[in-house]
């Protein structure tokens, strides 16, 4: 009955392997039009701020939170809990833009990042945030012996040092504007040095707790009772949240989640991979369903280094033959859109006009069987076999695999499946011997910040952590490398857009659909962030009762 699970396969990028509910959809329902959400419906990044105080709210995550240490935060439950209570050097706003957080960033030279810490910023215990805390937090992220997830994002960092009373300077080996995004997510969370040193290896566990700066502070945490956070009356920004207490509780079972939301035992949840009962919840007046910009891409990872899929024409043909609308309807109940790029358009966090312009000009990946068959004939691969890695235990994976299988058969390819158990699915990402003979496997993937490059660099660059098929395209490489060192956001966006347009042609992965971010909230509550930014920045500061 597990729902979904993520595997981060990369520095800064998460590969979501959906362990979806066992209840529900079968392949045959793939063509039914159960989705009643228009894919063009206006997405909202925020919900109207709450107006009335609320004594407490229960918020569901798909399993228990198992760490509050930002070093180990890689999955929905941990991110949701840490972003509720902790803050990063920089702040991702709900639209994906990067704002000053605990500090303001200036870049006097492309290789010098200067952070001026906000002198008002304090931890829950009243201690001010000092350069020593910032340096300690970043050093901890970079410390290889802790086994944290984000060591890789600091690869261009030369030194981190205090350069003034409230100032920390990062010197870089090479210009790296991607670091800005990373420092607005989990890698940039600032914790209190003295507290963390006192707790040692217990920091971030139920025994040791945490010390952060956010508007909610940790009250208690145990595997039996979940994470209990209470409003911090001394929040340094001067505002106190209206909801006095938020309990994050793990609800692995979808029926429980639905029943809990409908009966008021749960006041809210962010969907982390397709709620099969979304239709039912949308009709229920006890809850309200919001859709915000999503940052995740549902895609088929190409891992073939030889055989038919190593040929770009075959990948293009498969993409053209795919019935994406059926996946949007059956897996996402309409809460997803047709893709144009590998990036979900929700991630245009900067240079928005440049991205929008290029995106408008790109074709939607609609079904075109005749064109697909033509490409297969040109490639001369009809009758050859491709192998899809999947897990039949996870209904969303099974449905998507089925759709790709259908597409492949329709263009004259043969398909074999390598189906593994739900918990072994992660091995396709981590174990090369597991991937042997597997040409592709499905995923939901996202970067740590709102930038199409955050995902594309791991897929399309040589040595990229998710570049399983040794994909290489000189134009994409040149554009991405240049974007990383480009300060001007519009110019950077134009370069990334060029790389995305090219990737939509050469298909290092095949984009499946672009899920929107689904927020289900009690109709008595309002104010939670509705975009995917909730994973990286405080999402409940404006939460409160409907006025």
């Amino acid at each position: 009955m597990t729902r979904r699970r993520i595997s981060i396969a990369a520095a800064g990028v998460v590969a979501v392997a959906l362990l979806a509910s066992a209840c529900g959809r079968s392949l045959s329902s793939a063509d039914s039009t159960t989705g009643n959400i228009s894919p063009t419906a206006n997405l909202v990044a925020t919900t109207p701020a709450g107006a009335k105080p609320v004594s407490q709210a229960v918020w569901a995550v798909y399993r228990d939170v198992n760490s509050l240490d930002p070093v180990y935060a890689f999955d929905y439950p941990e991110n949701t809990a840490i972003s509720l209570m902790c803050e990063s050097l920089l702040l991702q706003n709900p639209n994906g833009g990067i704002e000053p957080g605990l500090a303001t960033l200036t870049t006097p030279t492309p290789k010098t990042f200067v952070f001026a810490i906000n002198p008002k910023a304090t931890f829950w215990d009243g201690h001010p945030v000092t350069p020593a805390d910032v340096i300690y937090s970043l050093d901890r992220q970079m410390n290889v012996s802790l086994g944290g997830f984000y060591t890789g994002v600091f690869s261009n960092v030369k030194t981190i040092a205090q350069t003034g009373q409230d100032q920390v300077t990062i010197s870089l080996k090479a210009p790296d504007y991607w670091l800005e995004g990373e420092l607005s997510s989990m890698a940039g969370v600032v914790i209190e040095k003295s507290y963390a040193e006192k707790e040692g290896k217990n920091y971030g566990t139920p025994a040791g707790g945490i010390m952060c700066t956010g508007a909610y502070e940790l009250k208690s945490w145990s595997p039996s009772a979940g994470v209990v956070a209470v409003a911090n009356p001394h929040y340094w920004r001067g505002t106190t949240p209206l909801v006095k207490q938020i309990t994050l509780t793990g609800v692995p079972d979808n029926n429980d989640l639905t029943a809990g939301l409908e009966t008021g035992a749960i006041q809210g949840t962010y969907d982390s991979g397709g709620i099969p009962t979304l239709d039912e919840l949308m009709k229920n007046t006890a809850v309200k369903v919001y859709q915000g910009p999503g940052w995740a891409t549902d895609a088929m990872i190409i891992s073939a280094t030889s055989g038919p899929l190593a040929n770009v024409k075959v990948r293009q043909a498969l993409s053209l033959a795919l019935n994406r609308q059926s996946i949007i309807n059956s897996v996402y109940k309409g809460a997803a859109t047709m893709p144009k790029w590998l990036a979900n358009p929700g991630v245009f966090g900067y240079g928005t006009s440049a991205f929008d312009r290029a995106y408008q000009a790109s074709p939607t990946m609609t079904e075109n069987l005749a064109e697909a068959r033509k490409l297969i004939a040109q490639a001369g691969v009809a009758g050859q076999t491709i192998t899809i890695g999947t897990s039949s235990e996870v209904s969303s994976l099974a449905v998507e695999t089925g759709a790709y299988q259908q597409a492949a058969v329709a263009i004259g390819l043969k398909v074999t499946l390598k189906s593994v158990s739900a918990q072994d699915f992660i091995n396709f990402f981590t174990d090369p011997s597991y991937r042997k003979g597997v040409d592709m496997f499905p995923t939901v993937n996202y970067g740590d910040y709102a930038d199409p490059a955050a995902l594309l660099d791991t897929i399309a660059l040589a040595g990229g952590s998710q570049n399983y098929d040794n994909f290489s395209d000189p134009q994409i490489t040149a554009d991405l490398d240049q974007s990383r060192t480009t300060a001007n956001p519009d110019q950077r966006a134009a370069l990334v857009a060029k790389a995305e347009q090219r990737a939509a042609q050469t298909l290092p992965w095949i984009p499946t659909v672009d899920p929107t971010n689904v927020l289900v909230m009690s109709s008595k509550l309002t104010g939670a962030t509705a975009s995917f930014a909730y994973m990286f920045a405080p999402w409940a500061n404006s939460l409160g009762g409907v006025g």
Partner: protein
Amino acid sequence: MSRGRFLLRRLTMLLASLLVASFVIFGSMYLAPGSALSALTGGRALPPASMAALQQRYHLNQPFLAQYWYWLANALHGNLGTSIEWRENVTTLMGGLAWTTAGLVLYASLIICVLGIGLGVLAGLRPGWVDTSTLVGTAVTAALPSFAAAMVLVAVFAVQLGWFPALGNGAGLLDNVRHLTLPAIALAISSLAIVARVTRAAVREEAGREHVQTAVSRGIPYRDIVRRHILRNAAIPITTITGITIASLIAVDAVVETAFSLNGLGAFLVKAAQDKDLAVVQGISLVLVIAFVVVNVIVDLLYAALDPRISLGTAPA
């Protein structure tokens, strides 16, 4: 066998079962595919130095027997190890969870004893519509798996009627009982039916025996006959089936906890096994083995109390 010697023998057997169980569980977790590191790193490609540091911290790079010995030596000192997933001591983690599981199993046991035996006795003594409806009712519920019962109970009593909460543990004793009611019913329902049916058969058999017929014909009050001749003799098979079903609840408990999103040992065990969190799997399994053995010891002690002809440590007739 004296009660002291009996308990001593059972204790020795318990320790032996724990040792064997721990080795078998450790071995099967070791052989099962996948690595604890992939749960630990979320599949993220960590630098080799990070991987090495993690492997060393959790002794993952040592040979199997060395790893087992390391765990055993710590366990003998009362340290059940550190959870890889939670990075915290297993004993501390289990502390809070054990109460939920114990409460759920006890609640379900109570339902089985009171309702199961009660219905069985009633049906056994009252042929007619009571008996027939009990038989039909238990035939249906005996075949109802607990996860299916959970779905029905939630749909009817939580979502439709709103009498009970759909999930969670609750806070405070009364709230706990309210939260555990539906899960306890789901856990008990099929065992309850089996206990009721066995009880009914035992009571019916005893009621048909010659000495009971004789007692009836001699005009002894029916209440006394039921109490002294029928129930007393039917108690042995009833105790046996009740003991077995209650012990089996400990195993089924994980299903119900998962179905109701309860945070108990069972659901935690399932999750830990999926993530190859060895220390947690070992710790919880050992607690469950102990609980299982203790329930059986209680049943054995009850036999001796119910029927003086049975000496401790031998099978009842």
